[in-house]
């Protein structure tokens, strides 16, 4: 999608990236931030028409590398070589924050990158919409140019952001950096994005693809680079690597893949939660039960009604019919306030809604249970500190101090606090909506280990709504598959494997 004048497009043809030729090369990049060594002699070669995956636990230097490429940081030493550079804009970025303007239309968002066409000072709207329509068709994005971006689903939004980035690249070739483009997308929506990236490959674009999702890497990438602690520990074609090897490279040791921790034989009673014929907007006649100490996973594609199920049970949404029985009491028209008072906890899908960003870590941990930190007249500073320290140590939250605003913490640590605060109350049932979204492998395991330990020790039950089927298969005692609002399959025991669940999810 090139709208430069003919003279410049002639120059472009001279610098056309042929398939497989080097688009950009990074050599021996070093970067320090004070005492910390972010990049240690990192090399990277991106070739036209190739998808190069960049993997690594965060803190490994991925983000720094991207920022150096973007010009946000300047490296201490090393080179970035562009053999065919034409102008300054031959690298385009799509960051995690897409940078689209929600209330404005697709046409406007695309036109901001290329410039509006005007006649006598006024925008030629018809022309603009037609141009946007062409772009949408080219990238096979299913929406209308006149729609507001905020009305689109996350997959469409990401694709529009990619289309916009592409418009600043020459017609063939260029480098596109995609920073966790599928982090917010459920697995099936991610497929559409993967198709788009494959399309870009045919245009000779060199794609640097940063992700935590190993499935995508195995599906899409041609080459992979793994960073660890600022150094490159692997680089090569994807063919030779399997999932486990990738994990080992990223984490540096074998991640335990215990399929199931044996459920504690200690009985906590029965029927923590019983749901009978529950219906909402999407949810249709769902029945399930959770026992104390049990982790029940719910798998399903977007639109299956998973999130809504969680909201219905927690009281954020009114069911249209059905019954919810919690701890042997029927819940009728309950609000989230009632649910919390009754012993439920909820970790929402959007991480920002589960924490109080501007408040300190300490404040975040105590707000869910202020009664427990009271002294005679009011909140006791010593008890408050103690409570916060307990949560931080129990969940291994990495924070500079208890007084920093929680938004200064990394996403994984924020999530740990968001979860941990519930466990200061007498919470009996946790509802977790995509709890490990955007968190890397190590932190995910940590979080679930804690949840499982608490389930064993305290008899806390958990409803885990997630699209990461491996997580569900590995950590949950039972997994239900939802499709179009109904439960279609149940797995437990030996039959509960990631592949079996995947088949059921996609097979419906």
């Amino acid at each position, binding site marked *: 999608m090139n709208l430069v004048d003919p003279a410049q497009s002639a120059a472009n043809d001279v610098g056309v990236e042929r398939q497989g030729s080097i688009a950009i090369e990074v050599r021996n990049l070093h970067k320090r*931030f004070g*005492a*910390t*060594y972010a990049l240690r002699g990192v090399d990277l070669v991106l070739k036209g028409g190739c998808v190069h995956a960049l993997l690594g636990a*965060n*803190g490994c230097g991925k983000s*720094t590398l991207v920022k150096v490429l973007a010009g946000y940081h300047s490296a201490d030493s090393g080179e970035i070589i562009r053999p065919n550079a034409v102008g300054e804009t031959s690298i385009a970025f799509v960051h*995690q*924050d*897409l*940078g*689209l*303007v*929600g209330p404005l239309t697709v046409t406007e968002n695309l036109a901001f990158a290329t410039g509006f066409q005007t006649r006598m000072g006024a925008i030629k709207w018809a022309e603009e919409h037609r141009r946007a329509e062409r772009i949408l068709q080219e990238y096979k994005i299913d929406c209308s140019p006149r729609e507001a971006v*905020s009305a689109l689903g*996350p997959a469409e939004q990401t694709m529009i952001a990619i289309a916009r980035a592409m418009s600043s690249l020459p017609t063939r070739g260029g480098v596109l950096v995609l920073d*966790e483009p599928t982090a*917010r997308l459920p697995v099936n929506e991610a497929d559409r994005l993967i198709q788009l990236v494959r399309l870009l490959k045919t245009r000779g674009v060199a794609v640097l693809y940063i992700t935590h999702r190993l499935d995508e890497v195995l599906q899409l990438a041609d080459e992979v680079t793994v960073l660890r*602690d*600022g150094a490159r520990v692997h680089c090569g074609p994807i063919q030779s690597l399997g999932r486990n090897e990738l994990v080992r490279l990223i*984490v540096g040791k074998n991640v335990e893949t215990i399929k199931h921790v044996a459920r504690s034989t200690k009985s906590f009673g029965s029927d923590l939660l019983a749901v009978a014929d529950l219906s909402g907007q999407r949810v249709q006649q769902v029945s399930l039960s959770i026992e104390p100490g049990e982790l029940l996973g719910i798998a399903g594609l977007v639109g299956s009604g998973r999130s809504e199920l969680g909201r219905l049970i927690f009281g954020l949404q009114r069911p249209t019919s059905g019954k919810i029985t919690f701890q042997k009491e029927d819940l009728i028209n309950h609000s*989230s*306030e009632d*649910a*919390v008072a009754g012993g439920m906890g*909820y970790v929402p899908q959007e991480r*920002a*809604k*589960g*924490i*109080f*960003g*501007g*408040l300190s870590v300490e*404040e975040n941990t*105590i*707000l*869910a249970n*202020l*009664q427990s930190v009271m002294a005679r*007249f*009011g*909140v006791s500073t010593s008890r408050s500190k103690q409570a916060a320290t307990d949560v931080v140590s129990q969940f291994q939250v*990495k924070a*500079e101090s208890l007084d*920093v605003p929680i*938004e*200064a*913490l*990394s*996403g*994984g*640590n*924020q999530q740990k606090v968001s979860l941990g*605060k519930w466990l200061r109350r007498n919470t009996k049932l946790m509802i977790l909506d995509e709890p490990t979204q*955007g*968190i*890397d492998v*190590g*932190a995910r395991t940590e979080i679930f280990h804690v949840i499982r330990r608490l389930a064993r020790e305290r008899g806390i039950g958990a409803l885990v709504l997630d699209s990461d089927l491996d997580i569900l298969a590995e950590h949950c005692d039972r997994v239900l598959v939802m499709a179009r609002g109904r439960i279609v399959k149940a797995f437990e025991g030996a039959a509960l494997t990631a592949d079996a669940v995947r088949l059921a999810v996609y097979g419906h």
Partner: protein
Amino acid sequence: MRFLFTAVSKYGLVVGLIIMIAAFSIAKPDAFPTFANAGSILSDSAVLSLVALGIMLPLVVGHFDLSPGFVASLAVMLTAGMLSRNQLPWPVVLLIVLVVGASIGAIMGTLVAHLELNSLIVSLGVGSVVSGLVLMYSEGQIIFQGIPKSFVKLGQTRLFDFMPLPFIYAMVVAVVMWFVLSMRPGGRRLYAIGSSPEAARLIGINVRRYVLISFVVSSVLASLAGFVQVARLGAGHPTSAQSLLLPAYAAAFLGATAFRPGFYNVWGTFFAVYLVGAGTTGLFMLGGESHVQPVFNGALLILAVAVARLGVIRKSKTMAKRAEAMLHQREETRQHGDGPDCPAPILLSTDKSPKRA
């Protein structure tokens, strides 16, 4: 050095106040640094401090109450009217005035909390209606006759020839508010709501109730301010309280730069009010005309917001630097946290009204 810097920014207001007093004392050594003058400043600003403390509560939960000037004016006229025309005893008048204030606050609170209307517009609209009521009741006249001496004593007595009673009232209110906001669970929840109403709802806080209460308290304090004003002046002026709005906000914003930087807080607001009061009095003494006051208030408001914003910018830069440094820390145990991925939304949002200064 860093300790000094944080100390100065945390107590900057106190320092600013001291410097200002010193400067005016040097400029007008006969008039400014006297007990009589100090008493006047304390008395003048007492009414403003009540209003400022009042509007602080909606600010804490993320809303704006632009009605206190009008509500205070209504209280002024009701107080003066009921004392002089109806000859009611002042405790009864006080009760009536506070109940009227509470009702107005409840109306605004309901519209904002339950109907989710924009607080700026609701408070402006309700305030406008109230100002009409004031005109109706007063017919534009100042009430200066018939106000009993026993009542005026409440506003004009100075303990030990120095400390005016209105200042004591304001002090009491400030102490109570400080206690509730910093020590009581309710106070913590208010700040939680201000930080994120959605997250607050998710941990079982009744957001609507707290928002409603914040508007009720704001209007009650505005009414109390009007009541005290009549006691101080011995007369009821229908529009005198309307000019309190801007300086009250200036004080609240300025206050958020000290004591608990980044958050609206009681002592910051309180000291800011007296900074404004001392400054205005000093400028008058130096020969400033009546136009000095609104110019000073306006300039101070802009300065307050600018300083607060710079503080936030500096803080987020420091935080970003810290986050990066933490990110790359060498650890003995594996570091598993994520990079500073934005918890921010994917889309650029239009600027929302500030939850905190």
